[in-house]
Structure formats: C-alpha cells, structure tokens
C-alpha cells in the first residue's frame, strides 16, 4: 500500500563541524601502526578487500617504525626524504609570499601533504611517468628537477620552460617523468592508464602513475580509468590523495555512500589500499608494493592516501569560511615532516639541533634559487616570454591563418 510510505526526503551529507564548532575527527578510525598485514604482491584482490577500509601505518606515536610495512629505508634515504619534504615546504612558503608580493598571479601549496608525492617518487624508476595534479610538486623536488625552473614557470618569466603559456605551478617535465598538468580536473587519471597500456603494448618495462584528489574522483574520467585499468590489467598505480577537502566541499560529498575512496576499486576487481599519507615510510612502502605489482605485470593498484590539506585550497581561497580554523591541528595523523624528524631522532640519525640547522640551509637554498629565477623576471617586471611564443606551439607547423594573425599582432 502506498499509504505505508512516508514522503521521500533528500539526503544531503554535511561535515561533522563547521566554522565556530569544535573540530572532531573521532569518526575517523585510526588503526594502530604496524597492525595491517603486508600481503604478497601477487595476492588475489578478493583476499585483501579489507585493506580498502583500514589504514596502513608504519610510524607509531613514539616515532618508531613498526610492523610488516617497515624496514625498507636506510638512514640516508630517510634523511634525503626529510630534506625533500622540508624543501617543498620552504618552497611553498617562499612562493606564497611571492604571490602576495605580486610576483606571480596564483599559487597552490602542499602543507601537510608533503610525504605523499615526495615518498612516492622514490618508489619509481627512471623512465616511469606520472600524470599528476597541481598538488604533487614533491614528485619534481624529489625527482631532482631544478627549483629554479619551477620558479621560472611560476614567474612566467623569460626562462619559463613553458613560455608563459600556463598558469603558475602547471609544470611539465617529460625528462623527470612528470606529464603536463591540466587545470581540468580528472583528465590525467585515465591518460595514465593509456600510457601504461602503451608500455604493455610495446613490451616495455616502464610503469605509469595516475593522480587525483578526493573531490575529483567524482569526475567520469576517474571511473573510465578504473574500468580500462581493470580490463587491460594496465601497469599503473592509481593514486587518490584524500586531503579531506575539495575547495569548500568536504570529502563526504564525493565519497557518498562508499565507506572509503579506496573501496571504489573493489567493484572493478582492483586491489585497493589505504595508507597514512602523513607517514613517509608508509607511503613509500605502499608505493613500492603497488609499483612492483605493476612492473610484474600483475596489473593496477588503487591507493588512497589519507591526509589533510592544512593550507587554503589556493591563493584565491580562505578556508575559515567553511571549516573551523583549528581543524588542521586536530587532524589525528599529525604533520609528515615532524613525524619523520621524530623518527630519525629516535633512530639516532638526527637531532633537534641538526633539524633547525637543516631548516635554515633548506630555506637558504630556496632563496638562492629564487634570486636566480628573479634575474629572469617575474610576472609583471623584468624578462618576459615573447608574444611570438603565444602563437608558437599550437601546431607542429604554424598554419597560414595563425601566421596571418601573428603578423597582424606585429610580432
């Protein structure tokens, strides 16, 4: 009987707290470090479905590395990782300031998410290809791309490798395994699958990595990526960076009724893992596991990095309008730099004093790079890319109509 049904009503998810409220992450279950098993890479995806609902963690509260995912990195490798994250953080601080000073139009920072891209990069081999979003500059920093070139791009100056054509931070470096960033969300995720399929078609040994934010998983490109990766068992690592926010929209809007973003992989038969994104060691261990699967031709892996976007979405955003100001301090997974530092101190490979010293050194190296870049100009002063560069590169060979227009423009 229809009378038995009350009228329908629309469900619209809401975050736990809004500005003015007390931050509360008690709904985020945090498993103990070391508690999640490490399956063999050729595991049947059906046997590890629970990994899509847990969080792989290596560093515990005491700063020790524990459990089956630990023990992969030497002191030297960890110190290098720490330096990469500190460099990215200092780089962000300087570039944010440069944007405020009008030296560039726009900037996006990584605060709180440094471990994800810095550690992942170390699990790849030369020749592998990332299809990143705008929040993975750690792939470049940890991959040895010169900071000066990043800054030249940010300043759109005469030495900008992209000739002033692209929005700041939309880098591109084939040599460093970094595909040209698109401002259109999600598009790169499925392209990563295509690159990986090409590698398999060509009987190559190289693998690809796709990157996407929690919010952007709602785009169709994400779903197309999963079905192609699943069907062709593409040698690709598919990375979801869940930093809890998509501009002002909390992750529950994109996640919907699924328990986690990683769980999206299960319907496609793709092994899906969740990892503590603020734990350099855990990110590295999971990345290596997934990369090995891809390289052994075992197919794709979906990885969700659980992290938190500490800063504003971009320089055009003010998060105090939609989330409590102190929410980042309540984030239960802590700060990736501090956690790795504490671990190194605990290992006896580092000290508070050396850390302070390193902070100053890292900042100096960023400032030196910035001075060098500024010699080539900033957005509104000094050397600029030429107006000719605007007309070049639309096609391999400039067609007559563009040549006419360039002539009309007087260049």
């Amino acid at each position, binding site marked *: 009987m229809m009378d038995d049904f009350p009228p329908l009503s629309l469900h619209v998810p809401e975050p736990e707290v809004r500005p003015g409220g007390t931050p509360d992450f008690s709904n985020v279950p945090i498993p103990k470090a070391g508690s999640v098993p490490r399956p063999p890479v050729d595991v049947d995806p059906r046997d590890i479905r629970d990994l899509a609902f847990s969080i792989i963690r290596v560093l515990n509260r005491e700063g020790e590395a524990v459990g089956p995912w630990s023990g992969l990195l030497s002191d030297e490798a960890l110190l290098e990782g720490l330096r990469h994250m500190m460099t990215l953080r200092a780089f962000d601080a300087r570039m944010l300031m440069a944007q405020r000073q009008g030296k560039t139009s726009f900037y996006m920072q990584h605060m709180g998410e440094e471990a994800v891209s810095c550690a992942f990069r170390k699990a790849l081999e030369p020749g592998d290809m990332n299809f990143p979003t705008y929040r993975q500059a750690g792939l470049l920093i940890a991959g040895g791309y010169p900071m000066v070139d990043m800054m030249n791009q940010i300043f759109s100056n005469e030495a900008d490798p992209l000739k002033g*054509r692209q929005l700041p931070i939309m880098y591109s470096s084939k040599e460093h395994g970094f595909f040209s960033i*698109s401002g*259109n*969300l999600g598009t790169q995720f499925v392209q990563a699958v295509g690159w990986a399929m090409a590698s398999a078609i060509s009987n190559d040994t190289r693998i690809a990595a796709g990157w996407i934010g929690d919010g952007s998983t*709602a*785009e169709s490109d994400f779903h197309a990526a999963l079905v192609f990766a699943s069907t062709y068992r593409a040698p690709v690592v598919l990375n979801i960076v869940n930093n809890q926010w*998509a501009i002002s929209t909390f992750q529950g809007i994109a996640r919907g009724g699924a328990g986690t973003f990683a769980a999206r992989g299960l319907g496609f038969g793709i092994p899906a893992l969740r990892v503590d994104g603020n734990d350099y060691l855990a990110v590295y261990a999971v990345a290596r596991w997934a990369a090995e699967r891809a390289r052994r031709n075992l197919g794709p892996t979906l990885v969700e990095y659980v992290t938190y976007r500490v800063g504003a979405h971009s320089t055009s955003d003010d998060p105090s309008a939609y989330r409590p100001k102190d929410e980042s301090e309540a984030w239960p997974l802590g700060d990736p730099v501090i956690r790795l530092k504490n671990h190194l101190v605990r290992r006896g490979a580092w000290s508070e004093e050396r850390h302070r010293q390193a902070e100053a050194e890292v900042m100096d190296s960023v400032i030196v790079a910035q001075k060098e870049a500024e010699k080539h100009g900033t957005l509104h002063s000094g050397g600029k*890319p030429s107006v000719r560069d*605007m*007309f070049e590169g639309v096609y391999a060979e400039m067609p007559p109509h563009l040549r006419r227009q360039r002539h009309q423009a007087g260049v």
Partner: protein
Amino acid sequence: MPRMTMIEAIRSAIDISMERDGKVVVFGEDVGYFGGVFRCTAGLQQKYGKTRCFDTPISELGIVGTAIGMAAYGLRPCVEVQFADYVYPAYDQIVSEAARIRYRSNGEFTCPIVVRMPSGGGIFGGQTHSQSPEALFTHVCGLKVVVPSNPRDAKGLLIAAIEDPDPVIFLEPKRLYNGPFDGHHERPVTPWSRHPLGDVDAGHFTVPLGKAEVRRQGSSVTVLAYGTMVYVAEAAAQETGIDAEIIDLRTLLPLDLDCIVESVRKTGRCVIVHEATLTSGFGAELAALVQEHCFYHLEAPVGRVTGWDTPYPHAQEWDYFPGPARVGEALVRAMEA
C-alpha cells in the same frame, strides 16, 4: 534604487526566483554552504535549506545530467559550472540531451534549466579560467545563449532565463563581476557603485531574452559586442573619436537581428568584437547575417576583432585580449575603407 555588483545582482535574481517559485533549485560545486567561489549563491542555502541549494560532487556531467532529470520531473534547476572552461564534461548532456528533449519527445518532456558559468579572461587565469565558449553553444539547436554585460541586465536576464521554458546557457563575464572593464588594465578598477548600470531594482523584473540594447548611439559605424567587449568598444570609440553605434547583443540566441540590421543600414559599416577565438566564432555568424541583410548598405568590409586562435595564454594575457587599441584600429579601418 540599490547599487549592486554583478555578483549581487545574480544572487538577487536567484533569490527572487527561489522565493517566487518553490520549484527553483540551485546546485553546483561549492555552491551550497560556501555560496560559490565567486559568492553568487551566498546565503541561499541558509535561506532556502540544503535541499534547494546544495553542494555537488565535482562532476559537471552529473550536475547537468541531474538538472535535466529534475526538469523532466517538473523542477526548475538553475545550476552553476564553476568556470566555463570546465563545462566540457557536461557537453554531451547539454548538446545531445538538454537541447533536444522537447523536440524528440514532441513536447512531452521539456528541459527548463539554466546553466550558469563564469566566462572570459582578464584575470590572469591562464587557459583554464579564461575561455569564452559561447559559439560551442550557439551552434547547437535547442539552446538559448545569454551573455550579460552589467548588473541590471544580469539580474533581468537571469530571471527571464530561469522562467524560460527551454534550456539556457548563461555566460557571466567574470572580469565584469565587480566593475566594468574597458581593457585598460593599467588603470584603477571602477566599481559598479560608480556606474549607472549598477543601479538595480531590488524586486522582480525581467530583461527579455532576444532583445539587444544600443549602448551608445552613433552614425558612423556599428559595433556588435557583448559582455566585456561592450566597454572595450566604448573606450575605442572615445579614444578614436569615431562616432560608433555600440550594440550590446545581450542574448546571442535568439538574436535581435532587427536591431542589428537597422543600425548597420544606418551607419553602412560594421565591426564585430568578441573575446573568443576568431575561427568559427560567433562573429562569423554575425558577419554572415550582416552581409545577407545589409549588403547594399555596406560601405566597408565587415571587420572582426577577436582573441587570437591560440589557447588563452597566462603571461601574454594583454597581448591576447582584444583591447581598445586593436578595436580602435578596426574602427579606423572601417572608416577609411
């Protein structure tokens, strides 16, 4: 009369429409709690509740596709795509679905939706925050396409669009949100509070779709423009001293052909200005119509000043943007022919 920015005028239009008609629903990325990245929907969720104004997942396809379904049910969705540059994932839903539902169902189902999106450059947004894709929509039968140039029109046109029985693409030139812009980026910004078109009636009113407006009376040459280019054309007329008649098209489809033809027959000259790229741009359609309807009155070839046929660059923004100098040259050329 209250003074409004274009953002406030758009918000007022949506607010009034939601108040008058409980079937109007508003959604999009960051549109609900936060009120939109440009703040066009600020306060509406608080006022009308989160089932009438809400945040969506980041899927433009999903936003437009669900809007079409809601319209089929009988609601009147007015949705936002965060930037016109991000409308492409929704293109299939707009072109193959929204535009044709009335026709293919013989009126059994209709699609009274409005898809709002900020468009155009002038904010150093690079290739993904600067595009003017109007011609991609005017080429589709079944869609109406609107581009307001000031707060008063934005409000009246948006209310008309929401009340319209067919799908409307509503492009908001973002460089005009806070004030008119004539291309002189080196000069201080003029706010709408100092422009007569910032005077906006607080209540309900419409500006009919399909009616252009003469922004400047003149006798020597007709300039066809819309959005930001209306102000660039005004500056060019003033700087060259050429007595141009400037027509703000306001609605590209349906087009106010009578207004255009009357003016061009009077002046005998026509220059078309848009920010979008040249090839197959809306200017091509306008030039063809002027040629068909005014050929024997023309004393000069119809001119076009547009963005170059390249992606919208970041650093070279002002070399790309068709500013008053380029429009002025075209006016002089039209007069000298």
